[in-house]
């Protein structure tokens, strides 16, 4: 792209905030009561992080992979791509993350977690709980109806933040699993920023926090 420095973030915004938020409203209406399953899966992830057990890394990876794959297909490819041609590539990235979670976490068993007493582990669990319980409240804080709520497992942002929380709580830094969630934080944060959305900073802070926690946990 020539003269790229003359472009502002808003130049890349293809849709209005109203259209973007309506997308979630219509999507939520179409997939209800799938949210119940998504919430149950999210709580299962949090519970597994907070407890012990030899299989929890594989189970958490499998749950996250399923959620990433669903968001790739159910939201990004089927819904978001109708107003944003770039969403096709985003869907491919989410599908790739699902595949990586299966390869590294489910089949490879390389996603182990810290002991329950670890402060980094608790911080990771905190990020997961933030994604499950606090992020969905953002819709009300910004004056939008509950019908436009973004939930873990069905919407990208809380799914990504919860995944970051899981990866913060991991025994070792898994850059191959962190790369796509961090990139999504940049993409989503930029989109929300361009829309002047009140919560545009949330994804950037989540990404920064996850990186800091991983660095301090070495």
């Amino acid at each position, binding site marked *: 792209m*020539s*003269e790229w420095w003359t472009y502002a973030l808003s130049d890349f915004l293809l*849709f*209005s905030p109203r*259209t973007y938020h309506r997308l979630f409203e*219509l999507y939520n209406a179409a997939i209800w009561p799938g949210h119940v399953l998504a919430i149950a899966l999210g709580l299962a992830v949090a519970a597994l992080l907070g407890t012990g057990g030899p299989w929890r890394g594989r189970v958490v990876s499998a749950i996250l992979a399923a959620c990433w794959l669903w968001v790739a297909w159910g939201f990004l490819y089927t*819904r978001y791509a109708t*107003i*944003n*041609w770039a969403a096709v590539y985003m869907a491919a990235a989410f599908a790739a993350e699902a595949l990586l979670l299966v390869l590294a976490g489910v089949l490879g068993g390389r996603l182990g977690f810290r002991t329950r007493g670890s402060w980094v582990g608790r911080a990771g669990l905190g990020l997961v709980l933030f994604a499950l319980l606090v992020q969905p409240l953002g819709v009300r804080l910004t004056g939008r109806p509950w019908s436009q709520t973004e939930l873990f497992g069905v919407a990208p942002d809380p799914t990504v933040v919860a995944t970051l929380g899981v990866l913060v709580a991991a025994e070792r830094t898994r850059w191959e699993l962190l790369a796509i969630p961090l990139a999504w934080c940049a993409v989503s944060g930029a989109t929300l920023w361009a829309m002047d959305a009140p919560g545009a900073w949330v994804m950037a802070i989540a990404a920064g926090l996850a990186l800091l926690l991983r660095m301090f946990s070495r």
Partner: protein
Amino acid sequence: MQDATRLSRRTVIGSMAAAGAAAALSPTSGLAQSGAAIGKRIPSSGEAVPAVGLGSWITFNVGDDEAARTSCAEVMRHFFEAGGRLIDSSPMYGSSQAVIGYGLARLGRPSGLFSADKVWVSPGSRGPDQIERSRRHWGIRRFDLLQVHNLLSWEEHLDTLLAMKGAGQLRYVGITTSEGRRHREVERIMASRPLDFVQVTYNVLDREVEERILPLALERGIAVIANRPFREGALIRQVAKHPLPAWAAEADCANWAQFLLKFIVSHPAVTCAIPATTSVAHVRENMGAAHGRLPDEAFRRRMIAHVEGL
């Protein structure tokens, strides 16, 4: 207001005829009509089009949302009823082309439509496929105008578009840019290729094109479409904090939208401005700028001074 009284109606207002090749148009069939719109002629053909068109950037990209699509169709209905004809879109605008096609089908395909779209793909060899997809989205037999969007692969695309025009598959060929980008290159293409249209950003605050591109368009007989007339709404939000000056009525401006649009379309080189909206009330306001009297040069300078002083 002293200035307003000093300017006589004759010095302030150019009539439709004085605005340059203006004509009263009968825009559509099958739709109610609330008065003829000011028309400006396309230099390469002499065909007149209404001075206010309809853009679709962001506003018509509503995806599969049935309620929003219906709302866009209502905007189109009121646009046609007020004498509008030219609708502009691009494959870059997400679902906008399909939403326009939905609206056209819902309105019974108004015969007065002037379809303006773009080609935006690289390499240029992929242009014909994209143009065909765009045509299907609109649900029309052929486009009136196709433009090379933001000069992307412009050499190959211009060859394609000029060949289509030669074969009778297209009526007009153009290029676009926005927000002052690549103006030197635009000038070179305008000077060297047989263009019918050029689309640039022009409004009461963004007037860089007045220096070279608009004079060149007049010299070369190229029609001009002005995009971003309200700076995607930011300009109208800015001026709307202030009362419309009373003297605006001398150019038949009843609101800020008409004030800003009449400034644009009263330039002798400008053929059409393409404001985008999702609101029926706003499209009616916008189309009001295609009716009544147009400002002359002295009045235009006053408009600039006023807006810059806000």
